[in-house]
């Protein structure tokens, strides 16, 4: 078949977008819960919130470039999206390991997101390989 766009990557990107909305709201709600129940001074709360919002800001272009690159079979946007994914992975690892309070729910959400990122990166690499060749 002459279609080089990867269907699994498309499905994964779509599901990732929906999951990320849920992830963002849940993590924000849990940070608010933690700040009420535990002792959460301002200079520990600010970096955690900053990382969360930075990740949300990165996610939008990352998903858009992923969609666009996959559908137009262009490797440049897909490569850019892969680069942004690396940044998102680092921020996700921060929220998993170096947050002020890591609850069990945090561990679950971040682990799912990390595995989605990992799978996506693999599919993007194979899609780029398919487009280039």
């Amino acid at each position, binding site marked *: 078949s002459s279609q080089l766009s990867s269907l699994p990557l498309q499905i994964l990107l779509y599901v990732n977008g929906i999951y990320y909305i849920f992830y963002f709201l849940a993590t924000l709600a849990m940070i608010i*819960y933690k700040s009420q129940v*535990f*002792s959460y001074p301002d200079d*520990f709360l600010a970096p955690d919130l900053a990382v969360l919002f930075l990740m949300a800001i990165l996610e939008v272009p990352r998903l858009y470039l992923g969609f666009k690159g996959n559908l137009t079979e262009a490797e440049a946007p897909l490569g850019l999206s892969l680069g942004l994914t690396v940044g998102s992975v680092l921020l996700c690892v921060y929220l998993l390991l170096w947050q*002020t*309070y*890591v*609850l069990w729910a*945090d561990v679950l959400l971040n682990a799912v997101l990390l595995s989605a990122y990992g799978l996506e990166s693999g599919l993007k690499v194979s899609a780029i390989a398919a487009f280039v060749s």
Partner: protein
Amino acid sequence: PADTRDAAQARVRSPPAPVTDVARLCVCDLLVAQCDINCCCDPDCSAEDFSLFTTCSVPVVIGDSQLCSQKAAVYSLDVEANPPERIFKLIDQVNPSIFCIHATNYKQALYLKSPEIPTPENFDQLLDKFGGATFSAEPDSWNLDTDAQNPPEANETSRYEYGVPVQTEDAFLRLPSPVVSSWCSDANPAGFLVNQATKCIRSVSVEKCDSIQALSMLFYINSSILAVPKSSQMVNITVQSIVVQSLNGMRTLLSSSDVLRLPTVSDELCINAVLGVNYHITHTDTGEIIEAAAAFVLGAISREALSIEQSFKISFTQENTQPVPLSGNPGYVVGLPVRAGFQPQGYPFPAAFSFNFPQLCVTSGIIQSSNKHSQLTILHSTSTQDCLAAQGARAPVLFGYNMVSGCKLRITAAMKCQPLAQTLLDVLKGQSFPEYVASFGNSQAQDVLDWVPITQLHISEQMFSHTLQSSCQIPVSLGIEVKWTKYGSLVNPQARIVNVTATITTTTLKQLPSGRERIIPITSSVVFTDISSPAEPSYKAWPTINIKLPFDFFYPFV
């Protein structure tokens, strides 16, 4: 010695490390090197001690229970075994909640912070942070200054309050008064609504008397008073009256008081020197001064005099009121005299007449004595303790102060009963025993319903069972019981007199054989009883929704 001192300081500087191992923590181990009873985690207890325990007072030692998984030390007593022994288990406690803390990167979250040990370097900073009435995270941004600032500088309100110095254009209204010694000090400010009267001595010399500022009238009236603090509205001090006192003490009121009389030296006398100033300040009920007047007493100083005594007085009156001395506003203040008076008899005019004949409208009211200390009085004990010799010494009844006083009556055979009874009644009750007592400290004389009548009781105390001996009774004690209650709001209760009962106890006077005499004690007492009922909190009524439709709402149909 230097390095041992440093070592000691280093030891002091670091507090002991906190213990976090649950197996070694024991909360009930209070006695050092001794076994605590029923404390299963105490390392000082041996197996024999454990066999004597009945329960474990601390069954579980655990860290923060919010953690997902943590170690817990569980202590229990196995009572089945013989002898009973303690069981110690170290288990992993798991928190099943999905919101348990898996990890934390914030050390102080789960443990109490070790306090900083004060050293000479950080002492000032610690004192700033923790030395005030409240702790603050940012000691410099909040104003933690708990030192009282000077009241004149801190007073930013736009009206005078009680005790605030009365301000004039340059400084304060001065009321010279004796400070430490009897010499006059000009630095005493007059406080708003604080009625003061002071007397002090000023050193003078007749030659320089026109240059001594404090002897001239101008010194006391030249600066005008600010109507409210920190405003530009001025109130001039007017001269109300001038009284001239001659050398032998005779005072004459001058007819014209608008001429300013300054001290001058005239043939070895200094005339027109200020001997006394009496300020009258009129104010509104919002704390603004509207009028100020000063009444002077001027006198002459002779050449030999090296000092004169000056007296100063200031009084504050609210505008449109009569300056009646109140005993509280509205509730009685403890220590102020109880106000009492009489109702004039024989003027039972009905109210209708008072409208038709306005000049007769003051038909009822309470007449009080002008001296506030002689309205309700009791006998004042004297040093001689003889009732008949000390007639006339009375002490005012002060609100809240229970008093007992008395005297001794020497009865001889020659005394006749009836005059004696009347004399004793006068001694006990005084010349004018009032009929009504004001229920509030500020009850006005025209509000008759605000005044409580004094109930008079007579109790006859029989000394012996010889009831028919003689029908002559002499009063031996007067007991005034004042029942008062707390009135008004829970936060600021006011004392209100509800009931006053004056009880005269009489006893029969036994006839004495001639030549004998007896001494009987006569007592009078005042007791204040608080009969306040317990306070009931009351709440505001729920607001009601008041919706009314316009009257032509159903227009076509109605």
